[in-house]
């Protein structure tokens, strides 16, 4: 398949990228290209121009400082998945990154491109929602920070403006006694998430003192499972309490559960508690072993 014609401009800096976006109305940013190029090849998108930000050094890399993990927008999934620092500081994110596509896709696909595309069946938006990530961008109005609950606005829609360049994503490093996980019901063809669940749990002496759970895949944008969170916080973490809390997830799904020929909305809604239970169980185990290790 062959993409339609477009013009191409390579930006050397974030500032230049912003200028090029302004100069060429309708232009799209190109990072790794793993969301955009497939759309171009299918001719589902035909922007007049692409602004390639793929070589801007200041957008790359991952750093941990003061309990925060800062990730440049151009950091690839492979870098996230293989970073020992991230595994230690934010295992759920590393785990989710290791689930994106396949190795060759992970080598080129970037976190920034992934979240800007905001595919509901993608893995990173879900885990970043659970982590309460902050998305930093630079646009015509200067720097902007958007929190995850605001960033993902709907199916393939974010709070980024047309001329904004996403620069960094910041998440909190894992605190003592905290455990995180990401579990995924994989679509056998697309490898996207039919259901993706991220859970971050804090355990103190076997009790759940905090829990954040986010759901992806089965809803148009990642959502927090607040009913589940409420039900598990304050409980002793046992298979029973976890299963019972997970069972509340239907209240968090709203009436926009997605369905397709592989898995209907009804089915996804009904089995969602199983996947929430599995994510929660894994996170709880990790939290408790973390707490034991401390």
């Amino acid at each position, binding site marked *: 398949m*062959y993409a*339609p*014609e477009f013009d191409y401009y390579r930006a050397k800096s974030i500032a230049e990228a912003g200028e090029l976006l302004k100069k060429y109305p309708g232009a799209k940013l190109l990072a790794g290209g793993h969301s955009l190029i497939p759309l171009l090849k299918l001719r589902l998108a035909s922007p007049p121009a692409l602004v390639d930000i793929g070589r801007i050094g200041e957008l790359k890399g991952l750093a941990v400082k003061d309990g925060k993990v800062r990730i440049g927008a151009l950091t690839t999934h492979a870098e996230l998945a293989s970073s020992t620092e991230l595994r230690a500081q934010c295992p759920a994110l590393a785990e989710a990154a290791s689930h994106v596509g396949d190795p060759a896709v992970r080598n080129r696909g970037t976190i920034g491109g992934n979240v800007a595309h905001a595919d509901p069946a993608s893995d990173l938006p879900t885990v970043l929602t659970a982590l309460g990530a902050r998305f930093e961008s630079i646009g015509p109005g200067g720097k902007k920070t958007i929190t995850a609950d605001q960033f993902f606005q709907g199916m393939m829609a974010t709070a980024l403006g047309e001329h904004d360049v996403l620069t960094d994503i910041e998440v909190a490093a894992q605190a003592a006694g905290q455990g995180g996980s990401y579990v995924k019901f994989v679509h056998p063809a697309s490898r996207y998430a039919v259901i993706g669940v991220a859970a971050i749990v804090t355990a103190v002496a076997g009790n759940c003192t905090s829990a954040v759970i986010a759901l992806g895949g089965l809803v148009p944008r990642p959502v927090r499972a607040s009913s589940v969170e409420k039900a598990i916080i304050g409980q002793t973490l046992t298979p029973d309490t976890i299963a019972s809390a997970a069972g509340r997830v239907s209240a968090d799904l709203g009436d926009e559960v997605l369905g397709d020929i*592989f*898995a209907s909305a009804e089915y996804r809604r009904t089995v969602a508690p199983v996947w929430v239970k599995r994510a929660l169980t894994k996170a709880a185990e990790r939290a408790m072993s973390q707490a034991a290790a401390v």
Partner: protein
Amino acid sequence: MATSIFGSGIRRREDPRLITGAATYTDDLSLPDMVHAAMLRSPHAHARITRIDTSRAKKAPGVVAVFAGAEIDALQAMPCAWLLPNSNLKVATYRCGACDVVRYVGDIVGVVVAETPYQAQDALELVDVDYEPLPVVTDPVSANKPGAPQLHPDVPNNEAFHWTVGGGDIDAAFKNAELVVKERIVQQRLIPNAMEPRAALAQWKGASGELTLWNTTQNPHILRFLCSVVTGVSEDKLRVIAPEVGGGFGSKIAAYPADFITVFCARKLNRPVKWTESRRENYQATTHGRDHVQEIELAAKKDGTILGLRATVWAGMGAYLSTAAPGIPTILHGLMLSGVYKLPALKEDVHGVYTNTTPVEAYRGAGRPEATFMIERMMDKLAAELKMDPAELRLKNMIPRFENGHSVVTGLSYDSGDYPAGLKKLLAHVKYQELRKEQADARKKGRYLGIGLATYVEICGLGPSQVAGAIGFQGGLWESAIVRFHPTGKVHVFIGASPHGQGEETTFAQIVASEIGVDVGDVKVFHGDTDVTPMGWGTYGSRTTAVGGAALVFATRKVKEKAKIIAAHLLEAAVEDIEYGDGKFAVKGSPDKAKTIQEIALMAHVAWNMPKDVEAGLEASMFYDPPNFTFPYGSHLAVVEVDTETGQVDLKRYVALDDCGPQINPVIVEGQVHGGVVQGVGQALWEEAVYDENGQLLTGSMVDYALPRADLLPNIEVLSTVTPSPHHPLGLKGIGEAGTIASTAAVYNAVLDAVAPLGVKTLQMPMTPERVWRAMQQAQGRA
């Protein structure tokens, strides 16, 4: 040496070019001045074309030509090559380019030729076509009902054919039955997915009126014949080359309109034209497989003895009859319904039905998996009803060992087999009773393991040409080989068949080496070029080794006979006194008086001292028409675990036991089994071509159509028994399709076995998590 090369798992000689990127597939070719074609395909499943305007496209950058509608109607209609007798067959007109009505999404309306493929694609969007949508029908059962949308004039109820097969007293069988089990099975439509998309490159030499077509075909000689019919280029001036071909699985048997349109463009423009399909196009317009709806009843006694099988099948044929399509759900399916069992009576009705979908053709197994599934599903259902062990029920009904012919109710005579021995060996290997105990223990712990069996026998080695004629196949089914020695004793072999991944360049060299005492490395096998190789009918139906291999054996033996005469002359002995052994032609009783085949080859070429009336040179050809089909068989077993919370199926273990007769190269045999098994597993668990009510293919790319992937599969355990075919010179039967024929049923039976304790009685393929989960919910009365 002669004893060890046959049966040796030597490395393939095909591989060095394939692992280094040096192999040349059709799309890798490029010629000076070459231009690129892109097919304009219908976006509607059924519509009348009211206007085509190519003027904008013709003006687009790089465009060389645009042809549409009547402009490509110079091509003859696509021929159907399997004219099923006694079936009221109605072959609807299948034009290369639709002029008035399009009948499936992907039907060709026109073609754009441009300097680059990018430009051709751009210009496609500039061809303006107005369509007036017509009503659509995509499933064969609905399409066969009165009042359904009609695809073709003069084909009432869209019935392309109604074929029946029967034998024994079916009414008596059901009258005497102590029990009847019934089932409705949907053998879903599949997309073959050869990894190499189809492609064609046509080069016209105007001065001589010669045309060369490089094509991704499994049967270049048939294609040359059909291309000649459709394009009007006479056969002697037409050369078809199948270069490296990246898998076929049946999808590269048919002749396709796009190939002939490419030829048409090359002639019109007098420039080489290349066309390569995208994967999306492959899904829309390269043939699909299966698509059966089957209603089956099995009559039995309470002790498990089967009495008769009655079935009605609706086979979706797609919008037109593809080249060999009518024979697939009939001859290759219905005639195999006795399976490995003593079945006294049979009656099957098959309705071949036109639908607004991609044409259906052979797909690995081609009719036989659909038959095996029917039988093996019914055996398990009967076993469940009788609370008998499925293995025991099978053994009870199996045809006992036979070595030279066994007639079954369908009229076929199986060549040889020992079905019970194969099944028993498989059961012993897996320690069947212990496995059942493990399963029972796991269930106590809330884990749902399932064990599934499938036995099969398949019809291969197609086949006696006289039979081919009687069953309406518009060709012969023999194969050919030429064995040519060179002065230094090196050998060239030319075969009419056209392997595309199966490894016959290696196994056929092994045959020659073991027959005549040359080093296997001294034999080179040529195939896939109609100007170079003798006529042959192609590679499909597991026939290349079974038929072409036999042709090669006989050609080699002819050379051997001539060599014997020359040896006798050179050794001054009588021909009767020459015996061949260990690569040498020696005088009986005087092993020192001997000539090697290499020495004889040299003398035959210099011809200084030839026997009287013996020609110079050392070569022979053979056109071998087999006296019967071959009937490979086997028993497979699958172990699965079902996650009862989600319905997800995990294939934990797979054991295949196959009997294809003696194995030329056991490593290659094993590879064929692995690949075949996994394709069948794909049907059981993942694969399905799904159309919506408008005839749009919802599984239109690999993003939606789930193919087996490495991380979802276990290793495959491969066992074998060896029962030679009595009529093949080496006893060979064929192995290409065996795995696929058994594995779908084995996996299905395993999954159902796993969830049967929950009350599940039937499942639908592919057994996706949701389907398994729903079946469990329904069984538990929760949905």
